């Protein structure tokens, strides 16, 4: 009898771990396929999506009153419709805003909900803006702060020490001042302060090495397992793939991509031309007189000064995981992203 009881107890404990699973099989609570994120990448997604929601709501509901309601994914939101220009000074708005004219928000205004401006927008010192879509140009004054996103069809001019939120994107020029902080930028181009006293300023394309008419110093077609350093001028054809670090201290042109397992450093070098992508598993620091026709991508940090990336017809990206510092004379035609801190200075 004791033996049978023991067997039963043993069987019970063997069976016990399966009980939750059997319940899950009989009455499934979590048996649907995992959701797949099906998307098409768009650097101006936030602004585009917001405008679409507003447009759909207009078409569906029509906003006739000054204050209406709009359905967002977060629920119903109040929206104030202003059919002329809008000026604010030390105002605090807790509802959405649609302005048909221009918006001028002087000091210390808080826009705690999304706003849409069909004209130009000016945000003065210490303004706090949750999110804004602007059809023309935007100027953000010193110490103004975007919490989530800013999108303009025209250009964006960001003042000193302004914070550009999770995303700032525009269809034209995005001008950054010293001390601007950011996570994600898109502009054509994104510009930092142009300092004419720097070595690289004003170098024309015609003054740069023309790979087609240059004498190639090296052809690469293999993986190099050590560090590399260029102290003399070099013109390279092919991809430069190094498991170590790369240092460039002189004129340099490469017709191919660069990948380094270690750091990539270009220090105050003139007439440096990368016709392909520059990718590092660590950091990329480049200063001098540099033109990059490809993307710049680093798993750790990127620091640029005197670097032009892409051109008006070639959208390119600068992406680093931890930190991105943009110094003077930087022009990036396209996209900038960091998961960490992005700062101009």
């Amino acid at each position, binding site marked *: 009898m004791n033996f049978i009881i023991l067997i039963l107890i043993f069987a019970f404990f063997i069976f016990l771990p399966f009980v939750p699973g059997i319940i899950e*099989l009989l009455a499934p609570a979590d048996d649907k396929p*995992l959701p*797949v994120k099906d998307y098409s*990448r768009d650097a101006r997604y936030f602004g585009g999506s917001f405008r679409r929601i507003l447009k759909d709501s207009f078409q569906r509901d029509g906003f006739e009153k000054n204050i209406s309601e709009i359905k967002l994914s977060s629920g119903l939101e109040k929206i104030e419709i202003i059919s002329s220009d809008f000026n604010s000074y030390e105002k605090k708005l807790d509802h959405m805003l649609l302005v048909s004219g221009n918006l001028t928000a002087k000091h210390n205004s808080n826009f705690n909900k999304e706003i849409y401006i069909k004209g130009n927008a000016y945000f003065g010192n210490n303004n706090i803006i949750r999110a804004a879509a602007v059809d023309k140009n935007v100027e953000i004054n010193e110490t103004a702060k975007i919490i989530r996103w800013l999108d303009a069809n025209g250009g964006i001019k960001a003042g000193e020490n302004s914070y550009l939120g999770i995303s700032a994107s525009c269809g034209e020029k995005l001008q950054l001042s010293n001390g601007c902080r950011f996570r994600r930028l898109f502009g054509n181009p994104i510009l930092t302060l142009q300092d004419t006293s720097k070595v690289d300023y004003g170098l024309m394309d015609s003054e740069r090495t023309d790979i087609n008419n240059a004498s190639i110093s090296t052809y690469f077609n293999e993986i190099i397992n050590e560090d590399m350093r260029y102290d003399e001028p070099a013109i390279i054809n092919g991809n430069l793939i190094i*498991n170590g670090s790369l240092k460039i201290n002189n004129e340099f042109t490469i017709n191919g991509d660069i990948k380094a397992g270690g750091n990539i450093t270009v220090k105050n070098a003139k007439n440096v031309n990368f016709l392909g992508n520059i990718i590092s598993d660590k950091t990329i620091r480049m200063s001098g007189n540099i033109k990059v026709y490809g993307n710049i991508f680093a798993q750790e940090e990127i620091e640029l000064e005197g670097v032009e990336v892409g051109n008006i017809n070639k959208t390119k990206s600068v992406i680093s995981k931890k930190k991105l510092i943009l110094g003077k004379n930087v022009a990036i035609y396209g996209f900038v992203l960091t998961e960490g801190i992005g700062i101009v200075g």
Partner: protein
Amino acid sequence: MVVLIIILKIYMLFVILVMAIYTFRHNFFTLNRVFGEQKLYYQDIIDSELMELSIIIPMYNEEKTAPHILDLLMKSDYPASKMEVLPVNDSSTDKTKEILDSYALKYPIIKPIHRKSENRGKVPALNETLKIAKGEIILVFDADYLPGKGMLKDLALAFKDPKVCSVMGRVMLINTSKNLLTRMLDLERTGGYQVDQQARYNLGLIPQYGGTVGGFRKELVLSLGGFDEKILAEDTELTFNLFIKGWDVAYANRLECYEEAPEEWKVRANQIKRWSRGHNRVLFKYLLPVITTKHLNFYQKLDGVLLLFVYLIPFIFLLGILDSIVLFFTGEMNLVNYVIVYLLIGMYVTFGSFAPFYQIGIGAFLDRTSNRIRLLPFFFFVFVFNMWFISQGFIESVIDVISFRKVTWHKTKRYRKEEATAAK
């Protein structure tokens, strides 16, 4: 007899050591996924200059699935001028040919290849198609896969890195809710991709190209002589062939793609037997090159070796069980051995199953689907199932090598309902 007993006891200790190593490996990966630095993939790059793609879809009797994947590829945001779709009809006996031809009429970038060769199978089909593909990048999808709109662009972006010669996305199940088997496979994929692959990518080890939802550089693979037709696991072969020569495989966890999993245990048994047979051939071919290559560091070599042995471990463990039975009946299994056997089974069942408990649990947590981990105890049965059929696959791979026999590809059965196809 004494010598035999000593050998059996030494083997037991060897099995325990092997299990301990794999347990450590799986736990290390899991901890890395939760607490470690996560390596960036390239999907955030926005670049107006895109590479030329050739998308190869090997097909044998795929009338149920072909319209789905072709429709989805035609909805891709990749510019049509930069891509061609090459569905390879491998002597199908159903309506695959007619379906492909009708799509080709409608979409000029779909260029079906109708193979008549007796040398059927995915690997010969790939080798043959590589020679006529125009793209510099080859992307491969199995016919039951459902790629999303941005998938092609995001996969292709990995090749902006000149060291990356192959890329792999994440496989997820579309038929999860079908039965116990599909639910277990869903969990297995979660652990395998969300945790294991991503951790190996994070740590700069050996993430694996999986033969679908992925791709490679055409010229490089051609320069390597294409795929070895004696090996059924062309994906694993390519992975190791690239790594030993210094190239990288990138893993993109965010590039998720649905596939259809086997819904019958018999079909799954054949699939896993084939994988084991192919993977073990890769082990025989690449073990020495992985150890001796100058392009891998110590940790990569260690991970490479452990990855190569993954489909041999169940056989080693099966012998361990037989070993313990013999020791038991010969009266040589004393208390210490009992403890050891307990530890051995405990460690392996807990951590060492196909996609171990730890990894599955954390993977489900990262996917924010906690209820499905209630099924974890059922992995004991999956473990026994896998052990048996993977061992069979290993034995077949040994016979393949010894007998020089020709390996033949057996297609995995599809379950999709024909009337559900998007073309209609």
